[in-house]
């Protein structure tokens, strides 16, 4: 197993280095094929790890492999010892599986997508580096290694968003993503510092028994990690970077900004779930943040014109769902939603990429329409993804989303009325999701064509199509295959729940109520979808007119609640102002003080110099005066 785990990390890194150093000499599809081969191998290795773990008895399902000692300092309770190694358990292997699985498909897709791009080798090198970072994030033996991957994926995201470095927008978006992520990272760091102080270790293996025994954790410690998770997983108020990150190539959006990297925050919360459970009100903060983000982003998504932005906000919204699940203590449900979301959101992004590819870079929904005639396969695949996103039975999203809502309702039912509010927010978000997904699909594929008549959209080449087909299948059956709570069919939960904290609140409803709620959610979703499809499906002109002459609230949505502007006004500009102020202060006061000391001596010497007037008589005079003074002193 050590070899498998080691290879899982070394292969992507080696491939990244190989492509980075020599990729320039490779031509055409070679870099892409190499990278895809590597990713597929990694998926195979992850499957091997999975099979190995499954063969172990449930309580011994972990493998700790350490390659070398990274740091070893101090002694006694101040000892800080960290290895470079991997920690395989159901949680990390699950993540590794879908990261490499979805990853391989996106690598495959990228081969065609990037074929004619200049510098595709650089792109694939970054992708490999990303895969490495993501894997070390998930598999790392201790929190510091997780942090290494954490920052590493941030770096790759930065590099890939800014891939088209000539574009000012892309460069800006990349930097924004990195900086906002770093805000979260500060929280992560502080969480680690505190953890080490309290428990004296950061290793996952060593923390396992400690976390199992811990009963009270400072809520702020858990929230430190949560701030980190908010940054990485684009939660309020740190979500602003994700929509901008769409400046990167579309497969990157699919891989990093939808399926894998953004779920790292969920992974961290799941990994440390016992700490969160033991930290009084920390979980409530997580739940409310998640619900608020889900609703907030869902609202914004209603009025976006850029197809990728719609998907970006829907990602933020779905991530909010996952945090809601975490906050409710339904950690398994969160993991479930992460996986189904990875399937259908990757599918949607890749489909959008195929559309954009077909339209030579056009991303504006108002300039699409009627594409199902030109791109039937893409349309079919994307529809499956859209149904999954909207939570329509029997597509994947339905199962995971419904489980989360069911837990929220169950806790309300068990006597906590505030949970009904959370449930309500979830249901409202579900309705919004169905509506904007229908809007997006209809604007893109339905109705009459508004495409630039010079363009001749054509279906995507084979590798892209294959990736779409595979993901389509996963989006259709992925949910039902992994779990259906109402039928007590829960293989994923059985697999992953033992390494997660037990839910602190009840999660089960009476079956009748459960089925009823499910039907209600289903009806709401279908209804919302129908409204959306009808609204935008017919004549396009009134819909556009309605959006253009929107009332104030809709303007707010179109302006994305002006969060960016708010940030600029409240944080960036004041900070910039403080920096300029510091500069002036430094120049005038601090440096001025020292220069003042110099000027003072100069002034003094100028004054004294006046006495040195070159007149012999004056010197003689002062000499005599001095003599008088001395004599007076001597005689006195």
């Amino acid at each position, binding site marked *: 197993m050590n070899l498998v785990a080691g290879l899982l990390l070394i292969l992507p890194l080696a491939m990244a280095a190989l492509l980075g150093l020599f990729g320039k000499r490779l031509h055409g599809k070679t870099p892409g094929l190499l990278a895809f081969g590597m990713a597929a191998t990694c998926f195979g290795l992850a499957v091997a790890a999975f099979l190995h773990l499954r063969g172990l008895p449930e309580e011994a399902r972990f493998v700790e492999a350490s390659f070398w000692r990274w740091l070893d300092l101090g002694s006694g309770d101040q000892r800080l010892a960290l290895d470079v190694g991997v920690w395989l358990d159901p949680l990390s292997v699950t993540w590794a599986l879908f990261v490499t699985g979805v990853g391989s498909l996106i690598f495959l897709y990228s081969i065609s997508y990037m074929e004619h791009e200049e510098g595709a080798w650089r792109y694939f090198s970054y992708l490999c580096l990303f895969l490495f970072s993501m894997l070390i994030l998930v598999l790392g033996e201790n929190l510091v290694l997780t942090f290494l991957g954490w920052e590493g994926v941030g770096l790759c995201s930065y590099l890939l968003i800014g891939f088209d470095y000539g574009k000012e927008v892309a460069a800006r978006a990349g930097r924004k993503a990195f900086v906002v992520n770093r805000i979260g990272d500060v929280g992560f760091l502080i969480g680690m510092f505190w953890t080490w102080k309290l428990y004296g270790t950061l290793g996952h293996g060593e923390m396992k028994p400690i976390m199992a025994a811990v009963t009270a954790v400072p809520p702020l410690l858990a929230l430190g990690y949560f701030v980190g998770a908010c940054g990485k997983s684009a939660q309020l108020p740190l979500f602003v970077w994700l929509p901008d990150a769409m400046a990167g190539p579309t497969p990157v959006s699919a891989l990093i900004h939808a399926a894998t990297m953004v779920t790292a925050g969920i992974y961290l919360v799941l990994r440390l779930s016992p700490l969160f459970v033991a930290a009084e009100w920390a979980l409530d903060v997580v739940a409310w943040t998640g619900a608020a983000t889900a609703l907030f982003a869902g609202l914004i998504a209603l009025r976006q014109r850029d197809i990728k932005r719609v998907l970006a906000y829907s990602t933020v919204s779905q991530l909010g769902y996952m945090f809601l699940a975490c906050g409710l203590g339904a950690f398994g449900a969160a993991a479930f939603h992460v996986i189904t979301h990875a399937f259908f959101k990757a599918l949607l992004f890749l489909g959008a990429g195929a559309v954009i590819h077909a339209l030579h870079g056009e991303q504006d929904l108002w300039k699409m329409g009627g594409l199902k005639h030109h791109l039937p396969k893409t349309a079919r695949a994307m529809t499956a993804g859209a149904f999954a996103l909207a939570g329509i039975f029997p597509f994947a999203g339905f199962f995971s989303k419904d489980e989360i809502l069911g837990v929220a309702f169950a806790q309300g039912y068990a006597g906590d009325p505030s949970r009904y509010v959370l449930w309500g927010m979830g249901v409202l978000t579900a309705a919004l999701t169905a509506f904007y997904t229908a809007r997006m699909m209809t604007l893109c594929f339905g109705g009459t064509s508004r495409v630039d008549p010079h363009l001749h959209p054509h279906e995507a080449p084979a590798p892209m199509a294959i990736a779409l087909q595979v993901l389509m299948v996963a989006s259709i059956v992925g949910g039902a295959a992994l779990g259906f709570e109402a039928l007590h069919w829960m293989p994923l939960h059985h697999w992953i729940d033992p390494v997660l904290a037990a839910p602190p609140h009840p999660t089960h409803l009476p079956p009748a109520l459960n089925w009823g709620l499910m039907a209600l959610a289903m009806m709401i979703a279908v209804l919302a979808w129908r409204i959306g499809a009808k609204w935008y499906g017919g004549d396009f002109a009134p819909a556009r007119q309605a959006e253009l002459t929107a009332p104030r609230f809709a303007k707010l949505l179109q302006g994305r609640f002006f969060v960016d502007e708010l940030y600029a006004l409240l944080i960036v500009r004041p900070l910039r102002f403080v920096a300029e102020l510091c500069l002036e202060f430094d120049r005038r006061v601090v440096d001025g003080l020292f220069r003042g000391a110099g000027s003072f001596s100069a002034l003094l010497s100028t004054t004294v110099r006046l006495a040195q007037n070159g007149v012999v008589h004056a010197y*003689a005079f002062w000499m005599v005066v001095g003599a*008088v003074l001395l*004599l007076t002193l001597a005689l006195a």
Partner: protein
Amino acid sequence: MLSETTAFLLFSAIALVGAVNVVTRRNPVHAALWLVGAFLGVAGLFLTLGAGLLGAIQVMVYAGAIMVLFLFVILLLNLDTTPFEGLSIARGASLLATAATVALIAFPFARARELRAAAVPDEPELPATAGNIASILFHQYALPFEVVSLLLLIAMVGAIHLARRPRRDEPT
């Protein structure tokens, strides 16, 4: 023979009158000649102090050599009588300060009792004979003596260099 006191008074008078005139004469030649007078007065005072050798040296070196040098320079430069330099506030202040200095120096002496009472004659240890002086100079003060000789040498070189007419190509 003059009495000692009379001699003292006479020579002091000569020295003081000479000194006053040195300071006040406008013509440098006159001033120089009065300076000779002052030197001679001082030489006389040396005699009354029992330092015959010093008196002789004073006459030779000062009244002879140094004065000749002064006069020589004055004549070389062909100086006229300088006009009256006027009394500025600065000069007044300088003279005032001078007066204060003299007063401060003289004050303790003027109050001293010995000014009126004759001092008790005392047999001095080493009379200022040429032999005694030489013995002190060459034994006890041998090093200073050598240093002074070096100083004179340096002064000579310096004087020659300074007084030399600069060569054409040399910047003045």
